[in-house]
């Protein structure tokens, strides 16, 4: 019944020619949650030599609304070694009539310099078209010829949220004498059929009828739960540099010899400066911290991607002179400075972002989008440095590159290693408040101490101006309508990665008087909001990737007030974590203790609704009130 309703709703909505309407009915499951529907997509990749690859794409996509338009992917980047031979798009209306046709010369051809990048020599052809109404059908085709075989497009039938796929076939033909290696992730299942032929070596992968996936909170990143097949050549070319590798060790060695060699020289004066700086220090940790802070104080991040410079760092000498560099340049600069004081380090390639994404441990290829630095130590994880950030503490990566596989490239060999994880107890926050009651106002001394990923969202306060600080607390405590922040003092302990906020505040009208009752919320200073909804069944995998711990003490000095109702203690415990709220009255003091632990874990989809209930319970408990009489 529900299905039928949806169907009439859609058909009433979108009028199609008969053929299309039938198609729609047939593929009705594909309309759910879809902004666009890939009717047919074919990719053919032909590799004729280790430095010659041709990619032909043709797609037919039904775009159902404005949000779906950008998911056509009607653009092709190019540069000195990658040519766009052909690119074309035809737009049809819902009756199948051609509205507009775009040849190569109608595509926009511009520099591909994104926000946050100073300059890049790559360019892009893209379709500049604004549909007047939806739905429309777009036929898109392109043909690319490139010498860069270091990157081969992956087969990812689901590459966008809210896009369903009726049919996608992907063919890769290798006639070169370089071996083609293949890696399938665990989500390549029976949905994907495969056909392998030899002479010439040809793989064909086909996927049909894949439903659209929508974004959901607490999901892994899209490519970590959808099919993905990666390809790499054992001999390949990158911007004119030839490479040979079949595993991470040889791949790392290639990068070390071709991309990282000859870029580590420093001017004598700088070497002397840095050696003098660390001269009186004993440990590797102390020396490395000082070198790292020297880099932070003397350079800044500028993104520059030109030719092989997209992969090869600009020299340490150049960074030393201009005092800027991109992630590769700054990481290599730090590495060179460390070298100058006798500390070897590894240049580590990583996929960055708060959604944790690993380099594929058992498949060596060009992966990752960022580099960081690691000083290996025998009995520990070693020391880690994010060289593009001028404020982050030494040996702290935060959620940008934590807990994931990276390729550590060193002179002593290269391997996949894991970055440090920040889980549960590492991400600790405590709030301690001494609260005096004055009429219906409260006056409080509050101390907030944060560590780990919690530190990450607080330490900016150390450098913020008054306006920003006021704004922060007004938002942080948005439930306190009449907040008056009278004094604040911060302590940014970079060594311990711990941030303390000491505040003197006043909240007017905190205590509500209804008749004779004086009511107030027992938790004035640390309310948590998950804002999750259970309205739909969970579709995506469900995980809590880091977790955290919170410990709070709120000490109300109640003076002459007498207790009317104090809530009972609360303990809520589940597989997702613990929530505790504890109350005591002692010597005119009403003491509230609060504890939350959110566990890091991979859960079953079916757990999600219980998780939402758990978070809703916590949100409710955070609103609990006590009632007093004056």
């Amino acid at each position, binding site marked *: 019944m529900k299905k039928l309703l949806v169907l009439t709703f859609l058909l009433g909505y979108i009028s199609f020619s008969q053929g299309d309407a039938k198609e729609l009915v047939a593929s009705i499951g594909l309309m759910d949650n879809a902004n666009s529907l890939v009717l047919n997509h074919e990719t053919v990749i032909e590799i004729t030599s280790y430095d010659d690859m041709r990619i032909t794409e043709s797609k037919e996509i039904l775009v159902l609304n404005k949000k779906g338009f950008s998911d056509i992917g009607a653009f092709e980047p190019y540069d000195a070694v990658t040519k766009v031979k052909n690119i074309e798009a035809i737009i049809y209306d819902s009756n199948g009539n051609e509205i507009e046709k775009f040849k190569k010369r109608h595509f926009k051809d*511009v520099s591909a310099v994104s926000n946050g990048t100073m*300059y890049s020599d790559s360019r892009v052809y893209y379709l500049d078209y604004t549909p*007047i109404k939806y739905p429309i059908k777009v036929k898109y085709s392109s043909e690319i010829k490139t010498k860069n075989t270091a990157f081969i497009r992956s087969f990812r039938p689901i590459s966008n949220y809210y896009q369903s796929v009726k049919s996608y076939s992907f063919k890769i033909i290798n006639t070169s004498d370089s071996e083609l290696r293949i890696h399938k992730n665990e989500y390549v299942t029976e949905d994907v059929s495969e056909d392998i032929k030899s002479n010439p070596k040809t793989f064909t992968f086909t996927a049909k009828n894949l439903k659209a996936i929508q974004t959901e909170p607490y999901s892994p990143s899209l490519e970590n739960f959808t099919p993905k097949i990666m390809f790499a050549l054992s001999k390949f070319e990158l911007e004119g540099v030839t490479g040979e590798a079949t595993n991470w060790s040889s791949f790392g060695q290639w990068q070390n010899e071709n991309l990282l060699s000859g870029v580590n020289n420093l001017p004598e004066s700088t070497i002397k400066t840095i050696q003098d700086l660390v001269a009186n220090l004993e440990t590797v940790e102390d020396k490395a911290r000082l070198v790292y802070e020297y880099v932070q*104080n003397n350079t800044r991040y500028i993104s520059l991607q030109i030719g092989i410079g997209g992969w090869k760092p600009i020299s340490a000498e150049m960074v030393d002179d201009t005092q800027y560099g991109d992630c590769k340049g700054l990481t290599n600069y730090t590495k060179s400075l460390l070298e100058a004081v006798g500390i070897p380090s590894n240049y580590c390639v990583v996929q960055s972002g708060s959604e944790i994404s690993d380099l594929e441990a058992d498949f060596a290829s060009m992966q990752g989008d960022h580099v960081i630095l690691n000083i290996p130590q025998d009995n520990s994880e070693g020391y880690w440095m994010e060289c593009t950030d001028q404020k982050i503490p030494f040996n702290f990566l935060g959620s940008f590159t934590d807990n994931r596989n990276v390729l550590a490239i060193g002179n002593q060999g290269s391997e996949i290693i894991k970055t440090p994880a920040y889980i549960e107890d590492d991400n600790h926050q405590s709030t301690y408040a001494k609260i005096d009651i004055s009429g219906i106002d409260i006056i409080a001394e509050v101390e907030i101490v944060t560590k780990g990923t919690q530190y990450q969202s607080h330490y900016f306060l150390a450098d913020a101006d008054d306006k920003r600080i006021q704004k922060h607390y007004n938002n942080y405590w*948005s439930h306190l309508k009449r907040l008056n922040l009278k004094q604040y003092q911060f302590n940014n302990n970079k060594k311990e990665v711990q941030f303390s906020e000491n505040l003197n505040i006043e909240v007017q009208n905190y205590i509500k008087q*209804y008749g004779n009752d004086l*009511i107030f919320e027992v938790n004035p200073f640390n309310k948590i909001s998950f804002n999750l909804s259970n309205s739909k069944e969970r579709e995506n995998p469900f995980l809590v990737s880091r977790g955290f711990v919170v410990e709070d003490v709120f000490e109300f000095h109640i003076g002459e007030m007498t207790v009317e109702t104090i809530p009972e203690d609360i303990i809520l415990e589940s597989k997702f974590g613990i929530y505790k709220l504890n109350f005591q009255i002692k010597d005119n003091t009403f003491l509230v203790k609060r504890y939350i632990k959110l566990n890091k874990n991979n859960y079953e989809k079916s757990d999600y609704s219980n998780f939402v209930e758990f978070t809703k319970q916590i949100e409710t408990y955070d609103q609990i*009130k*006590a009632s007093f009489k004056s």
Partner: protein
Amino acid sequence: MTKSKPALNLKKMTSKILFLICLVSTCIGFSQPQELEDITVEMLKSTQSEIDSTASAEVLYEKGKISFILDDLGWRYVFEMHRRIKIFNKDGYDQANIEIPYYVGESNSAKENIKRIKAYTYYLENDKIEDEKVRNKDIYDLELSELVEAKKFTFPKIQDGVIIDYSFIIESPHIRNLPKWSFQSKIPTRYSEYATVIPTEYLNYRSQSRGFYRIETTTEELDISLQTMNGGVQTKSIRTRNYTRNLPGIEPENHVNNISNYTTAVSYELSSYRSGGQYDIEYLSSSWKDVIKNLKESETFSKELQRTNYFEEDLANVLEGASSQMDKINRILNFVKSKMKWNEENRRFCSDKLKRVYDDGVGNSADINIMLTAMLRHANLNANPVVSSTISNGIPFFPTVSGFNYVLSGVTVDGQYYLLDATDNFSSLNLLPTRTMNWQGIELTPDSSRDIRLVPEKASKVNFNVFAKINKDGMLSGQCRVYYFDQFALNARNAFSKTSEEKVKEAYEKQYKVNNVHDFSQDNLESLNKPLVQTFKFGETEGFVEKIGEKLYISPLVFLKSENNPFKAKERNYPIDYTFPKSYKFRLNIDLPEGYEVDYVPEKNIFNFSDEMLSFTYIINAANGKLVIDVTKDINVAIIPTQYYTNLREYYISMLDKENEKVVLVKQ
């Protein structure tokens, strides 16, 4: 002390908005303009801005200078730009990334040239001033679009305390409008100057400035040698130097429609010119009268308004059997709305011959509303185009054609005036899309013109009716019905017509934090003369009632209670812009659980803000096991001036406190 004579109601047009835009008249200042000083050790050692100690960087000096040359390509202006910025700390390092866009156009004659880019970083080394140049090879060329390119570079040796200094020259044939100069940016500006040297025997410009801060001006007459293709020619010029000192950085705030309306800035528009060889003087718009004359002479407002061939036949069918003038208007508006799709472009002129646009069925705002006006006139209605500027386009500096970017249609029937906009499917008579609610429009009648108010005087209404009950566990369930009128209906229709029922339900669940929204229905989506009505039921939801001991504390406005005060900051620089007047009405009927009796009910209250600019009524009654709550919130003006802010903030806090009060029930 003279200012060009206010023409055609300029005074009247601005008087209403004077409190937000302070027109600064040109006058001789007491202090003198400033020349660029040498960089000193003290400058490099300073650690904070004297204007704002929290600033991460500040402009020490900036100067733009305009002069003119005449060669075989015609008149060109030469824009010499020099800027010097002091960087205090890391948050200011972004100032060292420079992008200079310039127009290349499609032909050589439209192309601007950029040259002599010089950029240096000045820093201290052992208390000695050192400098480092940005090398030419580190200046990149970039295409921003097919028509615009840019030079991009970053400074070397950036450290806390350094001073960066750059200059360049742009030569441009686009002399009609000189580069707009803003004396303020995100960071404080110690000194900013915009100087022009205008050969007044050939070219005349009108300038206009605005913003909160005073711009000082000096003028002098000079004899200069004008560079022409035949060498230099002596001519008289007027040199004007507009300058400001110590302006703070500009920061966006909420409830501001368009921040650029408040930035201190100056703009120049060509008013008359004489080409080199000939001696005819051509006048361009320099008063509202001239602007209107120019507009009226354009293809759009002359010929296209009169062309009727292409629609005559269709229109005859549309109007067949039309009974009254109002009937005709509605039929024509509906016809244009269904026939034409808006391509989301705001324009003052038609894109093409309207016949072609009509055939394509797609057009910009001028295409569609000029066509509408032509049809109305063809049907013997008294209709005229109304030119205007959208909110995003801001308020024009001074009488200028380019200040307008939109066209509406106005029609008078029996002394009643109606504004129409056929770009929006859900618009109707005197109900225009929100984007148009800026400043005012000018109606171009065949032999005159007049100002038209675009912000509605009547408040747009939205009413909520809630029937709910609370059970003994404090769970709330019931039904909510929302009536959207006027502007709210227009916006809601646009939003809901593109959204599936599921999404609408989800949106209500999310916004109101209620469970299981069901039995959703929607009426009058297409009946524009009626309110849009949405009704839904919601399942048992906790969170609106609190149980403490033997008592229940009910938040009587349940999910209609405001969550946050939009005015958290203690101070504010800009007026508060509500865009249009609004009126909210909430009526709630709540059945109380059995076994409880009412212990406390909040007091009734009426708050009034400054002569009823805003008002809030809160009436609550508890009787027969029921709560009946009537709350109204009226915003009777579109804009509230800045000086009311402190009181406004207090008003919002009191209102929120009232909304947060509780009804207390005790167990019997």
